[in-house]
């Protein structure tokens, strides 16, 4: 801020100094142009002077001109120095005024800016507070919603967990039942196989016994047949035959229907 103001003042000074130099140059040219105009007056036809005279006059004029010019230059230089001093003073005074004004404006601006900043800060703080309150409100609402959702999810998860546990228990029960059933079936199968094996052994034994008995019976029957042959006394068997018929009377009736 200070640098900007300083450069501003320098630029103003340079502009004023330039204006003064331009003004001086302008006056100097005006001055020389008037002298030149005076130096070329209306063409008059003077009587021709001798060369020496003219030379002497010309030299005297030139000397006079140089002196005037030097005196004018000195006066101009003095005047310029005075003007410069005056201008410097004016510039200093003006610069001080400007600097003071600028400083005051700067201070005012600073103060305004500070007030603005303070106001902005206050507004910002208010806004921030409001935003914070809103955020807190939203956060609270969000948290409440999240907690509500969390509670809901927890309840759902709890229900799901219970259902899953129930299904798991059912599945476990089914598995246990299946296992028990399989064990029972296995036991039954084993018992059945053992019974079947025992039965098969018994059947095999009975079969062999039956075969043995049949062989013996066949042998005995063959012996009896050979021994009795056609000498069977049916008269002696008559009562037995009638008793056999009597014993199977119902079967015969049924067969003859």
């Amino acid at each position, binding site marked *: 801020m200070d640098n900007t103001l300083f450069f501003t003042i320098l630029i103003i000074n340079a502009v004023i100094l330039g204006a003064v130099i331009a003004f001086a140059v302008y006056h100097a040219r005006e001055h020389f142009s008037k002298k030149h105009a005076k130096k070329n007056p209306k063409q008059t036809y003077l009587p021709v002077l001798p060369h020496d005279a003219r030379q002497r006059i010309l030299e005297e004029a030139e000397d006079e001109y140089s002196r005037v010019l030097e005196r004018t230059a000195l006066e101009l230089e003095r005047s310029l120095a005075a003007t410069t001093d005056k201008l410097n003073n004016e510039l200093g005074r003006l610069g001080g005024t400007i600097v003071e004004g600028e400083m005051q404006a700067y201070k005012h601006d600073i103060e305004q800016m500070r007030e603005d900043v303070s106001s902005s800060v206050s507004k910002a703080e208010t806004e921030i507070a409001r935003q914070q309150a809103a955020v807190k409100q939203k956060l609270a609402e969000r948290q409440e919603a999240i907690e509500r959702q969390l509670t809901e999810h927890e309840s759902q998860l709890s229900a799901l967990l219970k259902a899953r546990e129930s299904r798991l228990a059912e599945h476990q029960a089914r598995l246990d039942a299946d296992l028990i059933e399989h064990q029972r079936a296995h036991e039954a199968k084993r018992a059945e196989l053992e019974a079947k094996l025992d039965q098969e052994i018994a059947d095999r034994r009975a079969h062999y016994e039956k075969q043995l*008995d*049949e062989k*013996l*019976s*066949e042998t*005995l*029957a063959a012996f*009896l*047949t050979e021994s*009795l*042959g*056609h000498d*069977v006394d*049916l*008269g002696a*068997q*008559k009562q*037995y*035959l*009638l008793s*056999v*018929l*009597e014993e*199977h*009377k119902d*079967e*015969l*009736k049924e*067969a*003859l229907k």
Partner: protein
Amino acid sequence: MTAVRIPDTISSSEDLVSLIMEVRTYAKWFSLMTNAQRTGTRPDHQQPELTTTATEVIRASATDGTLTPTALDSLIADLESVHKHARSLTITLAAPAPNDVKRDIVAWTRANVAEDALINFRFNSQIVGGMIVRVGSRIYDWSFKKAIMENKSKLAETLSRV
């Protein structure tokens, strides 16, 4: 119920056919003789010889002690009807059955099982004793051989009946 009672001496279907043939022969002769008596001529044919059983059957068919061709024709029809509808069974014994055994078995069967039963008797010495009864497709083996085969423990009891 049959109109005529089959004598117990007629046991099989063959016996019944023979009886029918005898009755027919007799009925034919009886008809000729009746016609000859009616016309006053001598019959050319001699009276056929009848078995005791046929004689009994023909005598039983006479109404009021008088035999008529119609009664004989009716008897023949009844016998054919019995032959056609009678229920038959086959009994196999260990030896050819004597007549008294056959008669008793037939009498018992007709008295206790079926009145019109016809029994064909066969014999097979291999069955040792007892009988095998076949009724239609059913076979009842009540032979000693079967009894021996089925239970050797009763062999002594079975042998005691031989």
